């Protein structure tokens, strides 16, 4: 495996002067091949183990998801979908490992107001730096995949780090290490894309003619990619967005509205200053006081 340099920050949240793009050689990708997943949840266990997190014992409501959703502790979650394929009449069990997609154009980072709370490394990993996090929850609004969760313990945002700490020392993420079927593999972007091509070819030869790679262009691609048997219908996989993008509301909120807002406030203050310079103070004259006195005399008299 190549030596990665995860601490070359290429993007930093709420920082006016962004670090200039470093050498991007060495972009990493975690490839998740849904066709190989057996739903064992070893990845979830490995994730909890490596990140030293614990989930409270939950309640079985008759579905396989455990816990029921991503939580501030559970950064990855197997999502199970039973799908009746109308073409073949087969019942298909679609299992998708949900978690941060490490977007090339990260909505969380764009929405974050705290300088340095979210960073993107040269290798593509998007990481939350908790000492800078203020717990505002803006990343939740920025994310097109509904991934970040706010801890009710320390009021900070949590999500998959793509094991940036492991990757930093040349190891693969804990989930990839634990996966017994090589459904999760980790490596350079080139390696993973070429591996996915092999897998897609294999799937197509076995009747999945719509098999393909999920690397959505709406977020300029992701550093977690899926091989899907039904790449034409990503939403089948527990609501994976068909065409994810940063919400236009978030783009507006974090884009032009900031400058327009500051301009409106600044202009109003400037108009006030100019008005005062041109007109001078509006003072009460002696005549006004006398008129008032006369009114008071008359009014009482």
């Amino acid at each position: 495996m190549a030596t990665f340099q995860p601490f070359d920050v290429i993007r930093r949240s709420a920082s006016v002067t962004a670090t200039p793009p470093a050498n991007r050689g060495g972009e990493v990708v975690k490839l998740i091949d849904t066709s190989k997943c057996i739903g064992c949840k070893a990845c979830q266990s490995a994730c909890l183990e490596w990140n030293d997190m614990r989930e409270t014992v939950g309640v079985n409501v008759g579905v396989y998801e455990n816990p029921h959703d991503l939580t501030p502790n559970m950064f990855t979650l197997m999502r199970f979908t039973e799908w009746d394929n109308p073409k073949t009449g087969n019942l298909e069990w679609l299992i998708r490992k949900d978690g941060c997609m490490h977007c090339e154009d990260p909505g969380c980072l764009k929405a974050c107001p705290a300088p340095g709370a979210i960073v993107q490394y040269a290798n593509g990993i998007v990481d939350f730096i908790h000492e800078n996090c203020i717990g505002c929850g803006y990343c939740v609004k920025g994310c097109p995949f509904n991934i970040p969760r706010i801890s009710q313990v320390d009021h900070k945002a949590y999500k998959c780090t793509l094991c940036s700490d492991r990757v930093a020392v040349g190891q693969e993420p804990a989930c990839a290490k634990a996966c017994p079927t090589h459904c999760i593999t980790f490596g350079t972007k080139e390696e993973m894309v070429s591996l996915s091509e092999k897998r897609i070819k294999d799937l197509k030869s076995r009747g999945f003619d719509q098999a393909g790679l999920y690397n959505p262009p709406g977020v300029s691609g992701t550093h977690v990619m899926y091989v899907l048997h039904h790449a034409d219908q990503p939403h089948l996989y527990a609501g994976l967005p068909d065409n994810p993008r940063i919400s236009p509301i978030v783009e507006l909120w974090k884009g032009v509205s900031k400058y327009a807002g500051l301009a409106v406030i600044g202009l109003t203050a400037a108009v006030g200053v100019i008005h005062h310079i041109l007109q001078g103070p509006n003072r009460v004259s002696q005549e006004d006081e006398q008129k008032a006195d006369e009114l008071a005399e008359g009014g009482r008299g």
Partner: protein
Amino acid sequence: MAKEHAEHIRVRRYSGSARINHWIVAICFVALMLSGLSLFHPSLYPLSDLFGGGQNARWIHPWIGMVLVVAFLGLFVRFFWQNLPEFTDFVWLARIRHVLRANDEDYLPEVGKYNAGQKFVFWAQAILVGVLFVTGVGLWESGLGYFENLLGFKATIEQKRWAALIHAGAAVLAITIWIIHVYAAIWVRGTIPAMTRGFVSGGWGWRHHRKWLRKEVGKGHIQKVA
């Protein structure tokens, strides 16, 4: 207040409780503005240091907002009747050019306790406080659950995105109107004592709120300045 003429009258404009109420709202507004602006644009983030850093600013902002909403409700109830629109407001607005000139008020109609500009500030802030409250609750990670349980409704992320955009927009408008409010109080000399000491000079009433002054004189609510 002209001190050289001992016999000038002064008129009570705000009671002690109204002034305390106003200043609670004012302090909350400034604190909300500073903590809110710190999250509005990265260049303003250092303002959060006034509150002990970003996490504290983020934590305290919604609570200050709750205090403001309650206190503003007090002001709303107090000043509601005197801020209802009337015909002279439209005449006043039509002659806004004369309002904006420093010594050109003779052409304006006599106004009551509030002119159309002050009424605009009152109603605009009332609406904006309501909007900021509703959208602010939507953005309040730790407080939203309480309101959701109360109303039996779960906010979607899409709704929270709208809340963020609308909250920011409404805050910009509220700050703009606040600048107008503060500037008007400074420009029209003799106004600030109304909210600090509770009194204005008779001449101030004659010049700016003659109808109101006539009423107060009629009721005998005037004092000789000793």
